[in-house]
């Protein structure tokens, strides 16, 4: 077997050193009834590299890929072009096959990268600090709610109707077990966000308000009045960004005084990957840093006075605090954070802003073109690279029909909110730098046929 270096003579010699006769002698502590006497029945035996490749390739071919045709899906996962050098660099064995940097003298590569990542993320989100990443945006969002509870010592979180429904579901799951009360609602298919309703709902029991920016329908709204309203009641504002490229074109939540900003970093460097692994972004105001979950990398000096980096503030973490830890999190999303950071370094500010401009311009053109199709109405007057259309019929079957024609038309709100009739005709369409004018035209003419 190609991954096992021991030869049979090696094994025999080692058993001799150990002082036992057979390998079975090393498993004597397993109760006899639980010992398996051979390979588990009904499973295939080992296979060559070529055979495995053939099997996996056959499975891969059964999927319709984003690159095969016009593609307009978003809602928390976006198709962007990732420069080739990103994937090359993250496959360097010293990054790919390293562990968590618990031995900092021989992990400065990972640590310096994390320090750079933390700085890039903090600047992008507009926060003072950021951590070394979370599992993904949805879990980062939940952790932010938990953090707000620890800071405010209050147990009621108000979730905007514009928050991604999967993120809401995750928060609901966790809240069931921590006793937090969550106020949630489904969005309405309209131009208006629920900011006024959120402001009205804040009271002295509110730990935080969670608002997505741009929201699940693509809408963007000024968060400053909401932040002010939160702070007037000593509650925190948590902003959720699922499309970080947007912050190249619009104000950051931190600029609008959000206390905690979390996000999904998948857009930069990571790729679609059917939903994971992704990379959660987590930033906050400096005064809350000791309540922050997750790993943190900090600058320090070595014994010879040279700058170096270490994991720090670990007294918040489970391996030190055990049941008193701020979170049970034991890992970050290191390699995806690296991909994010490399892509961001390649872009730089100039590139990010140009990328954002291209995304926005493409989305504006697409929205205007699609709104000309009879039976299609643009719901969202302001947006970044994702907008919502209201079709004259239920969107989900339309998406299905378009997929048969090789067009992946967007995310129907019926998929995200099954059973919510008022949303059934909604279609969320994302446009990025990978979308061509021909793609938009193909979608527009196909929609026109189907809706006629």
């Amino acid at each position: 077997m190609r991954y096992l270096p021991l030869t049979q003579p090696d094994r025999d010699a080692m058993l001799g050193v150990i002082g036992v006769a057979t390998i079975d002698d090393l498993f004597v502590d397993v109760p006899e009834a639980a010992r398996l006497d051979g390979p588990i029945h009904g499973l295939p035996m080992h296979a060559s590299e070529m055979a495995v490749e053939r099997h996996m390739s056959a499975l891969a071919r059964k999927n319709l890929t984003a690159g095969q045709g016009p593609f307009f899906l978003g809602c928390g996962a976006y198709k962007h072009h990732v420069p080739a050098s990103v994937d090359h660099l993250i496959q360097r064995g010293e990054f790919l096959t390293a562990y968590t940097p618990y031995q900092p003298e021989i992990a400065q590569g990972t640590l310096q990268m994390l320090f750079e990542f933390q700085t890039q993320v903090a600047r992008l989100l507009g926060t003072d600090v950021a951590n070394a990443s979370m599992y993904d945006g949805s879990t980062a969002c939940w952790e932010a709610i938990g953090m707000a509870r620890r800071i405010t010592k209050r147990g009621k979180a108000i979730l905007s109707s514009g928050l991604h429904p999967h993120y809401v579901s995750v928060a609901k799951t966790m809240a069931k077990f921590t006793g937090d009360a969550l106020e949630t609602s489904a969005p309405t298919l309209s131009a208006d966000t629920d900011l006024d309703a959120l402001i009205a709902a804040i009271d002295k029991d509110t730990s935080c308000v969670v608002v997505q920016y741009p929201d699940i329908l693509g809408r963007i709204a000024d968060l400053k009045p909401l932040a002010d309203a939160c702070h007037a009641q000593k509650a925190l504002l948590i902003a959720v960004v699922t499309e970080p490229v947007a912050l190249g074109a619009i104000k950051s939540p931190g600029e609008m005084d959000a206390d905690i900003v979390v996000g999904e970093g998948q857009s930069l460097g990571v790729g679609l990957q059917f939903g994971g692994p992704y990379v959660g972004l987590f930033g906050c105001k400096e005064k809350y840093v000791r309540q922050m979950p997750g790993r943190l990398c900090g600058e320090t000096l070595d014994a010879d006075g040279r700058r170096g980096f270490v994991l720090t503030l670990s007294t918040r973490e489970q391996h030190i605090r055990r049941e008193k830890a701020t979170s049970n999190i034991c890992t970050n999303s290191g390699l995806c954070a690296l991909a994010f950071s490399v892509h961001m370094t390649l872009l730089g500010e100039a590139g990010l802003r140009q990328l954002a401009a291209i995304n926005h311009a493409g989305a504006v053109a697409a929205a205007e073109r699609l709104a000309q199709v009879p039976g299609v109405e643009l719901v969202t007057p302001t947006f970044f690279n994702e907008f919502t259309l209201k079709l004259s019929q239920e969107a989900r079957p339309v998406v299905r029909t378009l997929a048969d024609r090789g067009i992946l038309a967007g995310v129907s709100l019926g998929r995200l909110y099954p059973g919510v009739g008022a949303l059934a005709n909604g279609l969320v369409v994302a446009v990025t730098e990978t979308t061509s004018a021909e793609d938009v035209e193909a979608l527009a003419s196909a929609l026109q046929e189907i809706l006629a």
Partner: protein
Amino acid sequence: MSINASGWRPEAPISVGKTSSTTTGNKALMLEEALIFEIGDTTTTGVDFDQAPPLQGRGWGGAVPQNATADSRRGPTPNPSPEGEGLKDSRLGTLARTAPIGLPGLSEPETVRHYTRLSRQNYGIDLGFFPLGSCTMKHNPRLNEKMARLPGFADIHPLQPVDTVQGALGVINELANWLITLTGMYGVAMTPKAGAHGELCGMLCIKAALEARGEGHRKVVLVPESAHGTNPATAAFAGYTVEDIPATAEGRVDTAALLARLGPDVAAVMITNPNTCGLFERDMKVISDAVHAAGGFVYCDGANFNAIVGRVRPGDLGIDAMHINLHKTFSTPHGGGGPGSGPVVLSEALAPFGPLPFTARMADGHLQLIEEETAGDEHPHSFGRMCAFHGQMGMFTRALTYILSHGADGLRQVAEDAVLNANYILRSLDTTLEAPFGTSGPCMHEALFSDNGLAEGFSTIDVAKGLIDEGFHPMTMYFPLVVHGAMLIEPTETESKAALDQFIVALRSVAERAKAGDVSLKSAPHFAPRSRLDETLAARKPVLVWKDPDLAQAAE
């Protein structure tokens, strides 16, 4: 005298004693690398775009930096163009960005060099032996990487219509089938994002199951004191009170103490098997039966599944829930700290409560993926969703590739070779270092030593740093907590005998130095990119983001 006209002649190196420092601070292949904030600027980009930004009209806050300086904090200032005929207006409302961000860019060659240089300051499995106990740092096959990057897996969106992603669901189902079969369990929750997330999943299943039968009053979770820190943290997060169960002198759970503590207030026990002392819990089945009889559930931390895969099925030991770290047993890369993946196999009693989306065996034997909209009919008791989308798909493709490569026979050999390698290390070093449980029977996948017998003032960290100088990644230090100065060594099955022999020689030598009180060990490592780092300073005055030196000084 020259050999040819160029003046070339073969040279032998001349020893000049200790070399002095260099002008650059670099030392041949050991290259220092500054931060991107020190070498980049906000006007540089390493990406070319094929379109100019077409939006210049009303409401557009300025797209491309025009006058950025090298100081990335000041960055570009917006330079909105006058409204132009035929140019589209932005749809950003009043929210167009006006403030600079402060993100430095590098050209592509500089970027490649920056990260390549950083990578060389890292130790990885590709470079050498990485015996970090309980972490299972085995070889990461590149076939896994290649398969995960097939466009059919890498370039599909999680919300595409289900009939356009049948191959992806096929991967999930096929891997789920392997995990269920290898563990002898009933169902599997595939979405947990890492081991600790899997622990949470398992404990939430237990909590939901208890509440469903009206026993939500059970509030105590028993955790052996040798457990990973995530176990008590997880139980506490799920709202439980954690009580420690002591270990016996031989390094196993004190079965008598555990059984004595069972009662109507106990929700579950969380046990790691093989345990963190590297030993198989002989009484696991006895404990499970007793816990079940007392109305509780058994959670098994599956971090150490590599020791028993293909030889023992946890389902046969009465386990109700166990997470499987795909990044340990099934070779997906650790990536410098994630992403992980922690599917949780569940017993028949817990499977109905598993999270969405969920893969379960249907009555006719086939496996099905259940999402929210069908959950009401097919999976009505699910405790809900743990993360967006379908979990760590990119890890599923890698793990399945690995599993198919090994097959049922190869996986069994994996466990055998892992256990053989660990016992070889244990017996080769137990005369040099104290093995506190060396008489408790064979170890499983990892060998545990203590710092007893080192000279006064010397501890495990000195041995670890000495090993760095010898070219190895150190073992896990000071864990498990039940052993003083623990050194937990997990070689895995992907090390050759020659690699083990070299490590044994090195560790013997370093341990003898520590026993003899060799003070040079106190300042090790001497040959790494950095000497020991001041962790106290880092925690006392946290510097978590880079600030321009002038601004940082102004703030003080």
